[in-house]
């Protein structure tokens, strides 16, 4: 593929603040606080130095548990999403801030107001990763309690986003007059009352926040089922996906593009960004060694054991992790709570693991490492840059959500060494601003079309 320079696809990068899972190494002497604001400031400012599109935070609304007790092996404890992305925006100038926020455990009136507030406070740099949250365990911290049956979660998400957009559109662009001479602060005829009565929400209000710089936050989505993909095709502007393997990435990309067309949207109105880890060394060989070392730090013997216990549904403390996987079949008991689980059919999962262990000659712990701590991009800065570029030029993605393994300095090596190479290759921006766009919003940095303000302000009854 030898596209002329001008025809090269541009790479988008997102900096994912390391999360509360085994990817984040806490045992390294360089690992800092997961909660001090200094860590978030360093991370956001480093990402901005690297001209990333946005910094990103996942969200989990309950501390994870294993076998009925607080899960104590992984990094735990994180700030509240809305407040911390606001603070990160306050110590940066151009980079976007995107938070993961549940459509199940929030209400449209409040969340729409908060996101619109951040869009104002950040000068148009906020985005919302709409997730539907998984289970009743999280519901234990919220008024509604319990959870929604699976199909209803996307139904609620859909209605949530629809109502939120009405709320964000309620003030026309010219509703804020602010003319002291004429004594007019606002034009009441340009501020709509939003009345909505639906299956999940009954909302009747006149919002307090004027239309924000971006109109509304960039909508991101992170669910993988057909329903999740359709929701994304209808509503999202960015998809955060797990499909980071090349062939899988291309298939996912094509699938989403089809759904996008079916939803009547243009192919450039949605970006696809898989999550990815990376290990950069001076040479490819050095990076491979480092990757092995990091993987062992990520998957301690205790972490490997807990991971297997979550699949086998029982205490496995009697097994030898340097020996084979347990021979017996998994039980259905749910040991791990508060973490999205991918294993639905445990017997099949166990069989697949055994097969892999046998084929590759892996011990129990080594299987866990192979399954969970394979780093997406491993190599010298050149190798990593070229690999990322290959994905993007090959339409396996539009870029990546990079998840470093260290807080708060894990991104530094990427920004210092890989970004300059991407820039040299002509596939990555060298500034946020351009003469045509001196004060870019997050949406314009992403190269996405701006939403059209509503033609009519008659928003009553949706």
């Amino acid at each position, binding site marked *: 593929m030898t596209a002329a320079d001008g025809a090269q696809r541009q790479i988008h990068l997102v900096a994912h603040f390391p999360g509360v899972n085994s990817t984040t190494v806490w045992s390294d002497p360089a690992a800092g606080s997961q909660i001090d604001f200094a860590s978030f*400031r360093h991370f956001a400012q480093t990402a901005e130095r690297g001209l990333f599109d946005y910094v990103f935070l996942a969200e989990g609304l309950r501390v994870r548990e294993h076998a009925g007790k607080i899960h*104590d092996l992984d990094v735990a404890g994180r700030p*509240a999403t809305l*407040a911390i992305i606001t603070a990160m925006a306050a110590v940066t100038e151009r980079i976007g801030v995107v938070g993961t926020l549940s459509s199940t455990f929030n209400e449209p009136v409040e969340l729409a107001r908060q996101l619109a*507030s951040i869009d104002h*406070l950040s000068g148009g740099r906020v985005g919302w990763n709409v997730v539907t949250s998984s289970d009743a365990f999280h519901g234990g911290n919220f008024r509604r309690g319990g959870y929604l049956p699976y199909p209803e979660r996307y139904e609620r998400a859909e209605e949530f986003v629809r109502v939120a957009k009405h709320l964000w559109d309620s003030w026309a662009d010219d509703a804020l007059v602010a003319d002291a001479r004429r004594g007019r602060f*606002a034009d009441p005829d340009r501020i709509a009352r939003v009345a909505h009565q639906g299956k999940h*929400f009954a909302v009747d209000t006149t919002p307090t926040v004027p239309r924000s710089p971006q109109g509304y936050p960039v909508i991101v989505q992170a669910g993988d089922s057909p329903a999740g993909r359709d929701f994304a095709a209808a509503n999202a502007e960015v998809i955060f996906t797990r499909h980071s393997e090349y062939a899988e990435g291309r298939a996912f990309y094509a699938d989403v593009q089809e759904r996008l067309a079916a939803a009547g949207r243009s192919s450039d109105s949605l970006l696809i960004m898989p999550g990815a880890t990376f290990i950069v060394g001076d040479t490819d060989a050095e990076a491979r060694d480092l990757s092995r070392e990091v993987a062992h730090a990520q998957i301690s013997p205790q972490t490997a054991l807990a991971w297997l216990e979550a699949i086998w549904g029982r205490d496995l403390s009697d097994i030898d992790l340097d020996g084979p996987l347990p021979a017996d079949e998994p039980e259905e008991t749910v040991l791990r709570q508060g973490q999205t689980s991918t294993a639905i059919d445990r017997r099949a999962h166990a069989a697949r693991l055994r097969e892999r262990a046998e084929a590759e000659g892996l011990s129990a712990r080594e299987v866990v490492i192979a399954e969970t701590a394979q780093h997406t991009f491993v190599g010298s800065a050149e190798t990593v840059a070229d690999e990322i570029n290959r994905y993007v030029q090959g339409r396996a993605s539009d870029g990546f959500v990079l998840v470093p393994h260290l807080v708060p300095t894990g991104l530094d090596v990427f920004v210092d060494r890989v970004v300059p190479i991407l820039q040299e290759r002509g596939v990555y921006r060298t500034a946020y601003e351009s003469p045509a766009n001196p004060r870019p919003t997050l949406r314009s940095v992403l190269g996405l079309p701006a939403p059209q303000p509503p033609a009519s302000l008659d928003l009553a009854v949706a």
Partner: protein
Amino acid sequence: MSDIAKLHDAVLTVGVALDGAGWDPDAWRELPDPAAVFTADYWTDLVRTAELAGIDYVTLEDDLHLQGASEVGDPARSDSLQGRLDALLTLTAVAARTDQIGVVPVVTVTHTEPFHVATALQTLDHVSLGRAGWQLRISPAPADAAAFGRRSAETLTPEALLGEAEDVAEVARALWDSWEDDAVIRDTSTGRFLDRDRLHHVNFVGDLFSIAGPSIVPRSPQGQLPVTLLAETAETEALAIRVADVVFIPPADTLASSLERIGAVHAAAAAAPREERGLEPLRIVVDFEVGGERGVSRGPAELADQVAAAQRAGADGVRLRPARLPRDLEWVAEALLPELRHRGLTASAPRSGVETPARTLRQRLGLAAAPHRFAAASEPSAGDDQDVQTRDSQEVNA
């Protein structure tokens, strides 16, 4: 304690209450760019002015409906400032750009999610390195009930609203303590990041909501943020006595009635079992209007006289409500504060170079470091979770 003794060993805290373009509905007309009230720079500049002047804290008003539109369907108005941003998020942005002053947003507890409220406040405390507080607000407005659409306005009786607010305050404090300070151990020999015995479920069960906990946010620098309430009514005054660290007394028509109110709150708070509930004596802060209709005629000396009278009546602090921003805030900084300092009424000093580390809001308010209630109340090795509802009896046993 005699008045004289009190004068010598206590000084008043000084706060500023921010709202829109000021408390005067016409104040927006004086702003060079009235639309700036929807920007972070506007609020940052104001708070920095207050910080430089040595003000102890700012509060920021909030409401879920447009100014003056508390009934369902009340339309927007054209001639007064309309609209506002979320106060907690606004002060979070400001906290990231300031380093000394306390930041106290109004956060409504009616309709909102207690877990989100509690964790957002903790996050503000982390971002500000211990300068956060909370002005708890109840919303009886029918407009807010309609906006959320989950409860009919008729169910929002004063008793229900107050009971819920008390529950939210209670559960917030429990969540703030649900991680002990040293819960993160990073013990490589056992592979454990956390000592799980130092995290606690709160297992709160109230009439309107239940919360399992623990918080997703580790204990914040202050642990317990100062909780404040405006005593608009006898009921909110009683609530403040039950749950708050600081009560704001709204401006009265006459100084005499203000002074009388201070005395009454003082007596009521002293008679309440606050110590049993783990609360220090209630700090009484009196609101004064500055500039505008009622405050305009007062010079610094006259206002300082009134502040002195409030102190003699038992006030621990004053909170100033500038009618017009930034003008009246500048007057506070340049005229009023020097007068108060000159009389020894306040210690709040203008900023002198680098003050490291910054004082926490608790320190500024004279509140002792907050002990960790689970740690104090239970054997760490018990490990199991505490039930908030039985906390009082545990404290007795400890």
